């Protein structure tokens, strides 16, 4: 029975969330905050694969989110909504129920391919030089979308609200909450399976000593390729979700500041700790909402708290341990293959 504990709990939590938003027990503000929280979880866990487990210093994660956001929005708007960019929808809008998640996956796939922009230089260079490559990639991606006038350029792209409302016309349930939750669970599941597989062991070997890993017959180039593509693909899905929730994308929303946010969550949670990344995403989102009344002072208080935290817990909240390592009793309640 232990094997089914976690899946059942996750399903129950998802059901409870969807029911709560369906019957208005959660107001719209709380719902949006919860969805942003899930997106932050995807963002921090997927970056944790590169910055935490592989020990690189990638600081351009938001660029891949931007790719995912644009591609999935363009696909879903072109297929299911009437817009000033593409005219009449190519398919009947009621297909959006099936098509929207597929467009998110398409955005993720294209973002994964964009990840090659960083993956190939990473074969030859490491550390701070790779940091620059990722940073430059972020600037380049932003700049490409600013200059693409067919999808709005610097004014941004919109029309995703129509897709979501087309989904609600078919069946009136909180679709975005459902899919955000589903993709978050999907991300954490995939990352856990990946990290505990032999590829994941390869990622950790690359972190500890690349040359030694190479000698021990780890194909480091393949590991890097897979890790970068997976991480940027998941980031692309997060971007697509964000675009569909907001109903609007703008290239300037995916700048260095967003990347910084993702980086902070990774290092706050502890390098290479999956549960740490989830926890810190929850913590950061919560802190951001609690401190909202402070206005601009919020952006002084949060960094100050983080600096203080670094002084007292210099390896992040969890270090490189998982939740089950900190509380071994948790292991009694579940079992993973």
């Amino acid at each position: 029975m232990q094997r089914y504990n976690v899946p059942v709990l996750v399903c129950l939590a998802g059901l409870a969330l969807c029911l709560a938003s369906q019957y208005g027990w959660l107001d719209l503000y709380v719902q949006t905050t919860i969805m942003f929280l899930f997106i932050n979880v995807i963002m921090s866990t997927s970056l944790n694969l590169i910055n935490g487990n592989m020990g690189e210093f990638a600081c351009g994660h938001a660029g891949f989110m931007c790719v995912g956001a644009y591609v999935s929005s363009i696909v879903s708007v072109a297929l299911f909504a009437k817009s000033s960019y593409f005219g009449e929808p190519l398919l009947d809008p009621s297909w959006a129920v099936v098509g929207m998640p597929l467009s998110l996956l398409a955005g993720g796939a294209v973002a994964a391919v964009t990840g090659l922009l960083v993956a190939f230089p990473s074969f030859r260079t490491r550390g701070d030089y790779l940091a620059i490559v990722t940073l430059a990639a972020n600037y380049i991606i932003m700049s490409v979308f600013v200059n693409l006038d067919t999808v709005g350029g610097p004014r941004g792209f919109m029309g995703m609200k129509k897709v979501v409302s087309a989904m609600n016309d078919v069946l009136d349930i909180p679709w975005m909450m459902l899919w955000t939750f589903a993709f978050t669970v999907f991300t954490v599941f995939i990352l856990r399976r990946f990290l505990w597989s032999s590829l994941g062991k390869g990622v950790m070997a690359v972190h500890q000593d690349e040359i030694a890993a190479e000698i021990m017959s780890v194909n480091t180039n393949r590991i890097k390729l897979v890790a970068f593509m997976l991480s940027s693909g998941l980031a692309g899905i997060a971007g697509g979700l964000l675009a569909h929730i907001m109903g609007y994308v703008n290239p300037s929303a995916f700048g260095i500041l967003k990347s910084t946010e993702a980086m902070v969550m990774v290092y706050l949670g502890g390098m290479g700790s999956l549960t740490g990344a989830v926890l810190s995403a929850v913590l950061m989102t919560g802190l951001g909402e609690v401190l909202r009344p402070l206005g601009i002072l919020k952006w002084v208080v949060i960094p100050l708290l983080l600096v203080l935290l670094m002084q007292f817990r210099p390896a992040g909240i969890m270090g490189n341990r998982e939740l089950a390592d900190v509380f071994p009793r948790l292991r009694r309640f579940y079992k993973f293959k």
Partner: protein
Amino acid sequence: MFDTLLQNILNALQWGSFYALIALGYCLVYGVLLLINFAHGDIFMVGAYIAFFVSTFLLGQYLDIPGLPSWLVLALTVPATMLLTSGVGVFLERVAYRPLRRKGVNRLYVVITALMCGLILENGNLALLGASRKSFPELLDKAIWTFGSVSVTNLKILVIVSAFGVFWLLNTIVTKTKIGMAMRALSWDRFAVPLMGIPPDTVIVFTFILGSSMAALAGILFAMSYPVLDPYMGASIGWKAFIAAVVGGIGDIRGAFVGGFILGFVEIMVVAFFPSSYRDLFAFTILLIIMTWKPTGLFGVAKTTKI
């Protein structure tokens, strides 16, 4: 055509000087500590603000003191700003970076702390002084010399000359003096240096003083050339200067200097011949190509690791 090119080269030299001055600060701290001091761009911003307050104070805008003539104000503002700004840089070092270094944590956590310090400086400034932009007083009587259709202002000459002068000074300090030797030694082998009787903390503080005062100088010159100050002015120029420093080969001051000018040239030339929104696209694509061609930067030497 030739005149436009010459004019653009002059503009690029000026624009590159700012990048080069900031990149030098990144490079010094990186060379000694292997720390990417992401707060450096914001120290540049703090420098510009300090210069604003010092110069307006000396011009007699706050209290009932008689204002000084503007050339004297400029002569006093430069050293005062450099002094105060290096105080800010050293404060960050003492309060945020040194305790972490003592604990021997992964250096990426120090980098994140630096990022947070930068955010605190930016937003603290915004909260303290409000969102209204400050306009920097004119300290230098503007003179424009025209050769054919190429025009040069005295400010442009001042910026370029001071960038080269600072580079020469820095190069002399690093290669000829005793403290410069200590800095190079520290970047060569951090563990052997204390054993030789060199106090590493003194050297590190000196490095921060040098780097921050260079950022302060860049701040003053920037504020004089583009006299509108806002709290986020340091963020993007800082990130770009960091990229320039790495393209030159981080840890080598010649590299940082050359990298700053390369970025300045590329940006100005792209804007001269294409729509300005293509600036980042072209500039960073070129930098990415340089990084692919030389993975450790132009002047960088690949370190061999032993296992």
